[in-house]
């Protein structure tokens, strides 16, 4: 750290602390008020309770939406990771023309405002006569989850030592044996990480889903409905549960695949 040897408290430190507070305080406030006895977010808090959580867990709409979100998330993560890993293998192991164009094209869906993807898919599904359902939601989520699967797999496969595969082949293993006993175990952590991350993104997605949701709702759609109806005491507790689920997923993802090594 020879370049920055001044350790005095200055501009950088102030900015850092402010940004971290800015990022963390709102999340902290939501969690705190989910335990508030009165419905309004008033300081000082009247007391601590878990009654709102009980109310949420007895709510049928919430439970049905939770189940739908989990189903969608599982399907999306499986499809995204399979096609994403294949793409990543192609991008990291083969030399071909237009590689930069191809690796950029993979990321386009996540640079587009979700509302545009939403209306485009709505137009598309109505034009070809596919009715809106959880299946259309799954189809749409893969579009912005697969790029993240590619990014995670890239960060693993770029540093992958191909000589271990060659050694296996030299020792008489078939292609599929090499994949099953050598390659797969080595990339398994990243695959688990990619599954979890794509699940988390799908679980949280609202705007695209909003345009193409059928009769069955996902959790963010239910939450949006509540938020529009105004402040309800259960919103904070639903919000906290959703936050805790996403946070837990991210903590697990980071254990398997270091998210900071992603190259956008």
């Amino acid at each position: 750290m020879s370049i920055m040897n001044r350790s005095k408290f200055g501009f950088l430190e102030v900015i850092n602390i402010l940004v971290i507070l800015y990022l963390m305080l709102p999340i902290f406030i939501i969690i705190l008020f989910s335990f508030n006895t009165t419905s309004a977010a008033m300081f000082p808090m009247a007391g601590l309770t878990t009654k709102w959580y009980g109310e949420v867990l007895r709510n049928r709409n919430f439970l049905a939406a939770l189940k739908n979100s989990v189903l969608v998330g599982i399907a999306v993560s499986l499809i995204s990771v399979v096609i994403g890993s294949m793409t990543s293998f192609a991008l990291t192991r083969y030399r071909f023309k237009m590689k930069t164009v191809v690796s950029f094209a993979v990321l386009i869906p996540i640079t587009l405002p979700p509302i545009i993807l939403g209306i485009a898919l709505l137009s598309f599904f109505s034009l070809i006569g596919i009715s809106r359902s959880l299946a259309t939601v799954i189809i749409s989520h893969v579009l912005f989850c697969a790029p993240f699967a590619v990014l995670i797999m890239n960060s693993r496969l770029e540093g992958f030592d191909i000589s271990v595969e060659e050694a296996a082949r030299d020792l008489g293993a078939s292609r599929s044996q090499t994949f099953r006993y050598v390659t797969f175990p080595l990339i398994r952590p990243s695959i688990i990480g990619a599954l979890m991350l794509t699940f988390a993104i799908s679980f949280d997605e609202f705007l695209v889903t909003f345009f193409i949701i059928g009769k069955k709702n996902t959790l963010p759609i239910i939450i949006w409905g509540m938020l529009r109806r105004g402040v309800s005491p259960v919103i904070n507790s639903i919000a906290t549960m959703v936050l805790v689920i996403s946070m837990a997923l991210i903590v697990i993802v980071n254990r398997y695949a270091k998210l900071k090594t992603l190259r956008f």
Partner: protein
Amino acid sequence: MKKQKQHIYLLSPLFTYFTIFFFAPLFILFIYSFWRTTSTGLVPTFTMHNYLYIFSKKLYPIIILKSVRIGFITAVICVLLSYPVAYSLTFKYRRMQDFVLYLILISLFSSYLVRVYAWKTILGHNGLINQLLKYIGIIDEPLSFLLYSPTAVVITLVFIFIPFTILPIFSSLQNISVDYIEAARDLGANTAKTFYKITLPLSMPGVITGFIFSFVLAAGDYVTPQMVGGTEGLMIGRIVQDQFGLTYNWPFGSALAYFTIFLLVVLINLFIWITRMLKLRR
């Protein structure tokens, strides 16, 4: 690196999928923007009417410009706040790196709706800021301009999209070899000059990626203006959505969407051109 055709097989599932469910829908949306709506439904034709209609009422250009301006301000603030954070995580507080990045990732991937809603509780009439100010005694009546204003929209959008700028900037700073910086210092450049001539240009790709992400996503955001913007903070996302829900004028909605994208692409290229003119890039 192998030189076979095998990559085609590996790439085809994703690209087939993207072609059918991404590029085709975007193309259909584009085609729709030249159609007409009548009382009986959509009429396939080729007309520029929808694009011209954008300029027929003051409302649409004003909202589009406002959205672009809010997106731009958000992106600039995001970059200005992110750079010092990414810089100190890379060069000064390496030990804190994992912990801080963890917080940023948690913020990035935890519920988007909930994070926007949190600002409503903070900025609202009976929100935490007003309560705090009243408690300290700075104000008697709650400040009403906090919520339902373009300022509230920007505060919330920066909060939502700042991880999109911190991460690419951090990632590009990671690639800078400390040797370059030391070499510049050894050759007599001071801290400011080293930063301007070496660090900043080498980290520019990250700045540009982050800028594009936050600019486009903020300008096209739908939830934030709805939740904390009020009538003053109305943005293009809502207008586009209305064409697909309320008024059922899909062709006009498509034209609005494509016109906005076109404008964003032009502005992004302008931004990249400016950074090149200022010799901020190597």
